[in-house]
């Protein structure tokens, strides 16, 4: 549905997006993570045909991005929720949606139906005649999402849709994205929120000008650290450390009476370690297996890139 190949955008000497190659399939929710200035918004703007590319290629559906003739066709296929909601504050909620419906060349009946459907779905129907300027941030964000959907787009680009929202509003927006996911909409989600990405996205890309990693949230977690076994002992003795070293365990770290070991397959490796510890006279209080989080993966990649 969305494909890029070495997509690059430069502003003078500054490279905002560098050789971005990725693929988002139909019905997938793709999370685009990255620090401020990583090029996420620039990428979305290029894919929405708002700004041009310096080099490389990109396709939305069957249409090549960068071709003027295709730009209008692509814009009909997509909906955009920008980082600033950008609502007409002196127009009512209904008028905001209706205006966009007209811009997308929807008929009067289509507009009436979709406006009512989305305003009811997002709990704004009772406020349809209130000026958008009187809305809370959460309500504005919901209205901006509805606006991006009035023409039933195949692809929805969302740039930080939950930024600056209170937890309750963020939850409402997230639940709505999950609802769209059920409807098999393709969603390209720029976000800083790792927890949000992990919960919503089928696939995640980590960008810091260059695409540093791409995969499912689980793949990214595993690709960074794998898993760890943490063993809490009543007392740590040298003989226990020696016996574990003989097992050639990876990255053995001791801290007080706690041992941490990197493991690939804990179901197979942990029993051997337990046996070795007990044989060396150790007494185990607890043993736990931990996974690295998406946050660990993200921070490590961004840090490596900064170096």
């Amino acid at each position, binding site marked *: 549905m969305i494909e890029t190949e070495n997509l690059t955008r430069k502003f003078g000497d500054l490279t905002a997006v560098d050789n971005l190659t990725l693929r988002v399939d139909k019905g997938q929710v793709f999370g685009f993570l990255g620090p401020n200035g990583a090029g996420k918004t620039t990428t979305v703007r290029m894919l929405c045909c*708002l700004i041009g590319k310096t080099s490389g290629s990109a396709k939305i559906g069957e249409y090549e991005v960068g071709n003027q003739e295709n730009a209008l066709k692509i*814009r009909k296929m997509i909906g955009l929720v920008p980082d600033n909601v950008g609502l*007409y504050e002196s*127009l009512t909620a209904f008028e905001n949606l209706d205006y966009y419906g007209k811009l*997308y060349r929807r008929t009067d009946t289509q507009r009436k139906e979709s406006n009512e459907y989305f305003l009811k779905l997002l709990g704004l129907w009772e406020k349809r005649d209130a000026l958008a300027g009187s809305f809370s941030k959460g309500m504005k964000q919901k209205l901006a999402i509805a606006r991006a959907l009035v023409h039933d787009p195949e692809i929805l680009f969302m740039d930080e849709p939950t930024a600056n929202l209170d937890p309750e509003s963020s939850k409402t927006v997230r639940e709505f994205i999950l609802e769209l996911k059920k409807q098999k909409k393709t969603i390209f989600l720029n976000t800083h929120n790792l927890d949000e990405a992990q919960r919503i996205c089928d696939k995640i890309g980590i960008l810091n000008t260059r695409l540093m990693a791409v995969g499912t949230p689980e793949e990214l977690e595993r690709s960074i650290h794998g898993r760890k076994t943490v063993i809490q002992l009543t007392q740590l003795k040298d003989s226990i450390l020696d016996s574990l070293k003989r097992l050639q365990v990876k990255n053995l770290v001791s801290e007080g009476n706690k041992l941490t070991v990197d493991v690939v397959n804990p179901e197979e490796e942990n029993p051997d370690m337990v046996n070795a510890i007990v044989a060396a006279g150790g007494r185990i209080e607890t043993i736990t297996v931990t996974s690295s989080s998406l946050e660990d993966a993200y921070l490590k990649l961004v840090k490596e890139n900064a170096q």
Partner: protein
Amino acid sequence: MTAWMPWKIARKELKVIGRKRSIIFYTVGLPLLVAVSFLLVLKGQLANGIPDTISLGAESIIYIFVVLATVLPSTIAAYSIVGEKVEKTLEPLLATPTTDGEILLGKGIAAFIPPVLSAWAGASIFMGLADYLLLNAGLGYYYFPNWNAGVMLLLLAPLAAILSIEVAVIASSRVTDVRGANQIAGLMFIPFVVVFFAGAEGIFAFSIDNLLIFSGVVVIADVILFFLSKATFNREEILTKWK
């Protein structure tokens, strides 16, 4: 470009502008104020029985409505474009399947119609009531109707309004607030004011020939600024270079 899309955009702009009391007051009030002021001057002079010594000639008074046609659109055009920039509404608008030309034309129509109609209305009120006062004074159709006023109102005023809108579009890309854009675009009224004073001082006659030549100059300026404003108002420029 479809014919009705700019009109859809213009209707939205007019709806938004219609809810800004200050813009309505300014757009409707100023021509009305000019009309009423000069009618009071005329009435006062008629009371003294010397209508031909009115301090400004009839053409000069009508020309003031041309000057208003250069001043009034810039406020609406600046609000329509810089207002969108300030309220961050441009990006979602640009993401719709509308062309840059359709958006620009829509905004231009919205900035053109109310000021030009308002200038025409002010001038019509002045001309109608001036005729009424002069007829009652037994002087017949002393000032109006005349072809000079027709050329000024029907040709020069719309051309001047277009010029003002184009300058406002260009100014909008360089400033971050409506007032700034309005101030820059407002400079457009200087050449028109110079012509006004030249007329008042007798250096420039508001004859049909002179008005047509002046209109021709404005047409040339309109065409040049059309290409400049069109180059300024494109998605790439707006999102990457506009302040």
